[in-house]
């Protein structure tokens, strides 16, 4: 086992006890990146090679030199007896949707390919102040619009470390893949409809979507402003807790950040879960999908392997003394995606109007005689298909003549989705849940190119994750086994507002209880010998 395979907490402890230096840890991660990552994402990448198909390609920008300076500084502080902070010397990757001063901040889009951010996002600044060593920016779906990381303008696309013929999920695919492949123990991602939890599930890592407002969005290139949540990806609950504690909290630069104190998530981890009330809902054990020929929406049970993984987690929790409450009704779950098609598109269209080829980003070349043509050409060349689709959809459903039919109605259904959770979590209600236990995704990682291009089917990959975004509540995905193809299965816990500590505690308890499980022995394919 190499230093890069250690957990974040172990790395921190090694550095504080001087068993390893921050530079040694960094060099170990850089060696791993060299071993498994292949060439970084680029705009004009040329055809994919056979070697490309066997590599992870998590990175767009590797900031090796800056990371080395940071690591040396951490080592000097340790040598001088100073405290570098709770993330001292822990390498981390950042989804390239966050602005980091002096670093290309591309959003995976041609329109921002030349954008060097003049300021740093709050969660990134907090990680750096806490001593994290930032390795660079990792790939994502363009502007986070997707569930496979294939839509990035920066190719080759990120591949799943467990099977490089499969997608890593998305949109935080680079984050999840970098953590799973041992390139870094921590990554900062974002979750608008499952974009942390779904890739975490596909890549066999832990991903936490905090409560909306728990982590500042300042410096996050916006998608759906009422839905976007920055959050951690890590290899276990403890590391996730450590990172969340660092990035969470009020921020005067984000008026939607909640002005509430942050719990000591690490301390909460060790508490007993006896008596916790964990719910199961039949509405999370069936998937809805559109029939492409008839337009009908069909429902079928989630795949047996995924259902069984959740039911095994039920057994674990029951054995630990939790109360399992079955048949919790969540009737509006199935409307999560249609509502998302409306709300997120309206918000995305609004947020994308700022990219105009004038103030920053891509500007069309050549002689242009009027401003409107400049806008049209710059945006036409700069945006890929997915942002264009979201702009058009958002403008259509929010147009005056359709707004009542679509947007206003979607906002009301959002209230109903929130109502399902409020009823389930109500302390004076029938169910009084501490958490709802569900599958994270309707499938395990699907093959590259299988779904890409079908924007409706791709969106349905998020159907079990997106209700939490509408409701604003926290959710976590953690590995719960492998399927017959050796691909990770994600199990999800959803909890009441600002109960990240409970979700982490339950995840930690599951990890401890299954520490000797056979499936935990297997490593991602890119890390296996031979």
């Amino acid at each position, binding site marked *: 086992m190499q230093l890069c395979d250690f957990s974040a907490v172990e790395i921190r402890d090694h550095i504080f006890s001087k068993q390893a230096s921050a530079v040694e840890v960094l060099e170990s991660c850089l060696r791993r990146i060299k071993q498994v990552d292949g060439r970084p994402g680029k705009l004009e990448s040329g055809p994919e090679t056979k070697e490309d198909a066997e590599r992870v390609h998590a990175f767009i920008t590797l900031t090796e030199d800056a990371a080395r300076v940071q690591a040396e500084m951490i080592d000097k502080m340790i040598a001088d007896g100073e405290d570098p902070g709770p993330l001292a010397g822990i390498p981390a990757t950042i989804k390239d949707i966050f602005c980091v001063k002096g670093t290309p901040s591309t959003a995976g889009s041609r329109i921002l390919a030349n954008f060097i951010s003049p300021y740093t996002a709050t969660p990134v600044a907090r990680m750096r102040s806490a001593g994290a060593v930032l390795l660079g920016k990792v790939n994502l779906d363009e502007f986070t619009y997707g569930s496979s990381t294939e839509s990035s303008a920066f190719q080759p696309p990120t591949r799943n470390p467990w099977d490089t013929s499969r997608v890593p999920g998305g949109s935080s695919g680079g984050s999840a893949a970098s953590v799973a492949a041992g390139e870094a123990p921590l990554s900062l991602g974002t979750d608008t409809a499952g974009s942390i939890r779904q890739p975490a599930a596909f890549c066999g890592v832990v991903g936490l979507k905090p409560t909306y407002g728990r982590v500042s969005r300042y410096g996050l290139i916006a998608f759906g402003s009422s839905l976007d949540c920055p959050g951690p990806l890590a290899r276990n609950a403890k590391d996730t807790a450590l990172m969340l504690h660092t990035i969470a909290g009020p921020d005067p630069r984000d008026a939607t950040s909640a002005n509430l104190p942050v719990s000591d998530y690490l301390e909460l981890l060790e508490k007993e879960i006896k008596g916790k009330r964990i719910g199961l809902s039949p509405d999370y054990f069936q998937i809805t999908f559109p029939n492409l020929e008839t337009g009908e929406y069909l429902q079928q049970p989630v795949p047996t392997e995924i259902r069984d993984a959740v039911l095994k987690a039920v057994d674990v929790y029951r054995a630990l003394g939790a109360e399992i409450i079955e048949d919790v009704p969540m009737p509006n779950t199935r409307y999560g995606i249609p*509502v998302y098609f409306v709300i997120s598109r309206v918000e995305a269209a609004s947020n994308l109007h700022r990219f105009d080829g004038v103030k920053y980003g891509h500007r069309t070349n050549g002689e242009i005689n009027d401003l409107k043509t400049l806008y049209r050409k710059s945006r*036409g060349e700069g945006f890929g298909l997915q942002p*264009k689709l979201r702009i058009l959809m958002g403008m259509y459903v929010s147009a005056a003549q359709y707004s009542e039919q*679509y947007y206003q109605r979607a*906002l009301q259904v*959002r209230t109903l989705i929130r109502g399902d959770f409020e009823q389930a979590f109500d302390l004076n209600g029938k169910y009084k849940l501490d958490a709802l236990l569900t599958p994270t995704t309707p499938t395990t990682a699907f093959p590259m190119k299988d779904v890409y291009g079908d924007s409706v089917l791709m969106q349905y990959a998020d159907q079990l994750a997106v209700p939490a*975004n509408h409701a604003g*509540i926290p959710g976590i995905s953690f590995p719960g086994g492998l399927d017959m193809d050796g691909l990770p299965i994600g199990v999800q816990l959803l909890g009441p507002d600002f109960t990240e500590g409970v979700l982490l505690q339950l995840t930690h308890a599951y990890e401890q209880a299954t520490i000797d499980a056979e499936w935990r022995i297997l490593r991602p394919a890119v890390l296996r010998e031979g």
Partner: protein
Amino acid sequence: MANLKQEISRETFDHLVELAALELSEDESDYLLIELNNQISAIHELEAIEIAKDVPPASHGVSYTPESSPPLRKDDWDACEDAESIINQSPFVDDGFIVVPDIPHTTLK
């Protein structure tokens, strides 16, 4: 869902593209029109839901209480320390000004 009724016609689509200030190739237009209509078909599912008149729209999932709402910032001037670096993000700058082509205008008589 390519066989379904196309709610958005080519004419409406072209109007949207114009409003969105996007120049599209023919291939892009064809793909986007199909996908747009497929997405519209997906949201028709919402029409089947009975919604009581008193259900309010939700602009956020989590409600902001007086305790959780951040205090308003003081109305103080906080100068950008490096305005030049912001202006210089523009692809065309001249003497601290962002250069653009002719802005559509009407000369008043």
